[in-house]
């Protein structure tokens, strides 16, 4: 942020502040580091409790294990998540923006603005009750389809409110001049307002991407078919099972199958896609929550 004091010399309190934050940063990083180190160590050493902060007998075997044993379900789950994330993000951002537009045009043009905002606040305060929610989605015939994850997030109220706040900043003259040119409201929305709002749409798209990529509860409730399960459910089922002991029963002993080290490797594999796009995420999302918190 900004510098409060121009004084460049470190005082005692500066050392205390840097020290405290340093400890906090170490506590934030340590679990990741420990996990990376375990995922790169030999399974025997990990299970014997010999691995803490540096790899012992370094190996990539823990990662190769998923290539050998779980490749098909891993890729399938990855594919499901990729599909729901891409389609769901486009779907959700488009409908959130389209609903936000008339609301932002104001009471003079659109008298139901209060109603839509009321519904948005209502849906933030009241999360759907689990059992009737399940029965409703089941009634629509969406169980075990990707749409069961996407349709319930057609409009994310928080995202819609962020977009409304942003649209309201667009000067009225732009709308007036478009009207003179004879453009309908929908064309103004598509061709003028959306391109003007790239910054806020990017922010909302990032929130949606994270939402769909990490989706868990909705998948637990609505997806029981293993072939339709997204990545988080697949990862959870591998991690919560007591290793892959059953595989050893096939005859050949696999030192990786019963090791804790493969769990670490899977955790790192799951973090990796987020870590790769993280610098990009960080640029946009801070702006987003500040816009959202104004209203």
């Amino acid at each position: 942020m900004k510098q409060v004091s121009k004084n460049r010399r470190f005082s005692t309190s500066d050392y205390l502040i840097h020290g405290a934050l340093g400890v906090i940063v170490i506590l934030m990083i340590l679990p990741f580091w420990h996990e990376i180190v375990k995922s790169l160590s030999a399974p025997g050493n990990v299970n014997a409790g010999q691995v803490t902060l540096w790899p012992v007998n370094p190996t990539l075997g823990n990662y190769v294990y998923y290539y050998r044993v779980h490749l098909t379900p891993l890729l399938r789950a990855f594919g499901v998540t990729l599909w729901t994330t891409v389609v769901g993000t486009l779907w959700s951002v488009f409908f959130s923006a389209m609903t936000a537009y008339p609301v932002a045009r104001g009471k003079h043009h659109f008298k139901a603005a209060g109603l839509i905002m009321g519904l948005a606040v209502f849906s933030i305060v009241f999360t759907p009750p689990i059992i009737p929610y399940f029965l409703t989605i089941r009634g629509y015939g969406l169980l075990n389809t990707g749409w069961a994850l996407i349709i319930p997030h057609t409009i994310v109220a928080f995202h819609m409110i962020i977009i409304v706040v942003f649209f309201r900043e667009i000067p009225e003259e732009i709308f007036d001049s478009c009207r003179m040119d004879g453009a309908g409201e929908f064309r103004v929305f598509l061709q003028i307002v959306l391109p003007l709002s790239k910054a806020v749409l990017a922010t909302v798209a990032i929130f949606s991407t994270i939402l769909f990529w990490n989706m868990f509860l909705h998948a637990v409730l609505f997806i029981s078919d293993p072939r339709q399960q997204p990545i988080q459910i697949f990862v959870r089922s591998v991690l919560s099972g007591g290793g892959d002991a059953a595989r050893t029963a096939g005859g050949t002993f696999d030192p990786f199958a019963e090791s804790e080290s493969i769990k670490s490797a899977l955790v790192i594999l799951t973090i990796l896609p987020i870590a790769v796009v993280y610098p990009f995420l960080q640029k946009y999302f801070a702006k987003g929550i500040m816009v959202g918190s104004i209203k």
Partner: protein
Amino acid sequence: MRTRNKPSIAFQLSSLKDNILHNKVLYLMVIPGLVFFVMIRIIPILGSVIAWQRYSIFRGILGSPWVGWANFREMFAYEGFYRVLSNTMLIGFYRVVIGFPVPIILALLLNEVKSIKFQKFAQSALYLPYFLSWVVVGQLFMNALHPSTGIVNILLTRFGVEPVFFFGQPQYFHALVTISYIWKFAGYQSIIYLAAISTVDPSLYEAAEIDGAGPLVKIFRITLPIIAPVIIIMMLLSIGQFMEIGFDQIYVMMNPLVRSTADIFDTYIYRVGLVNGRFSITTAIGLFKSLVGLVLIMGGNFISQKWLGRGLFR
């Protein structure tokens, strides 16, 4: 607020009609959104009527028999209900009392840091867990605290302490849930406070420094009073979320050994309602949970309006 004679209802309706005809497209544009809110957000809430039925999934809402308040009576007579209620309330309480000040402290620390590079690095480290799922974060904690392969227990053993199976003993569960929640969200939550702090006029600090004020005096006399409105809003929001512990975190971290302290409303409703098929009673329990949540929001808002002259909705 303008005070003017209210126009007649007939006039209002005809002006609404004019407005709709004049801005047809705007009204058409919200139709998908309206359908969504009704079909996905409101109908499930109306579907809660099965709490007053003995619901059978084969007969549906229309065919299932009505049983009055029987499900609610059964709920209050059932001892497990109180366990779930107390777990939910306790975890919510720890979150608010222990978790609420942490992001404020983080924001104050981050704001005082003089090295920009270190500040950026610390922010990156603090925000990262927000983007990860509970499946991943829960497993990070379970792996780091694993009785034989986790770093915490390896270090304990080196100091001659017996290893502790943290995730296998009920007495640790609330602490683990609270700590991991703070670890995941405190950085993210600090952004809002950091933004609020950046609105403070620097000349106030300079004036205070000339008067010989130390850093603590500046924090308590300048920064905190100025960002107090933001703190109040965040407090009200967090009280509103009191009952929403979140299914993901508990479900991922729970195992049968710690169920006595781990089970919250959402995990209980899922397990007993969906997995075991007891739809009606768990819907009643869900209604009770929503009711408590609503009372907390309204109560918090009322107290804040009354004492601080400032609520959530205005």
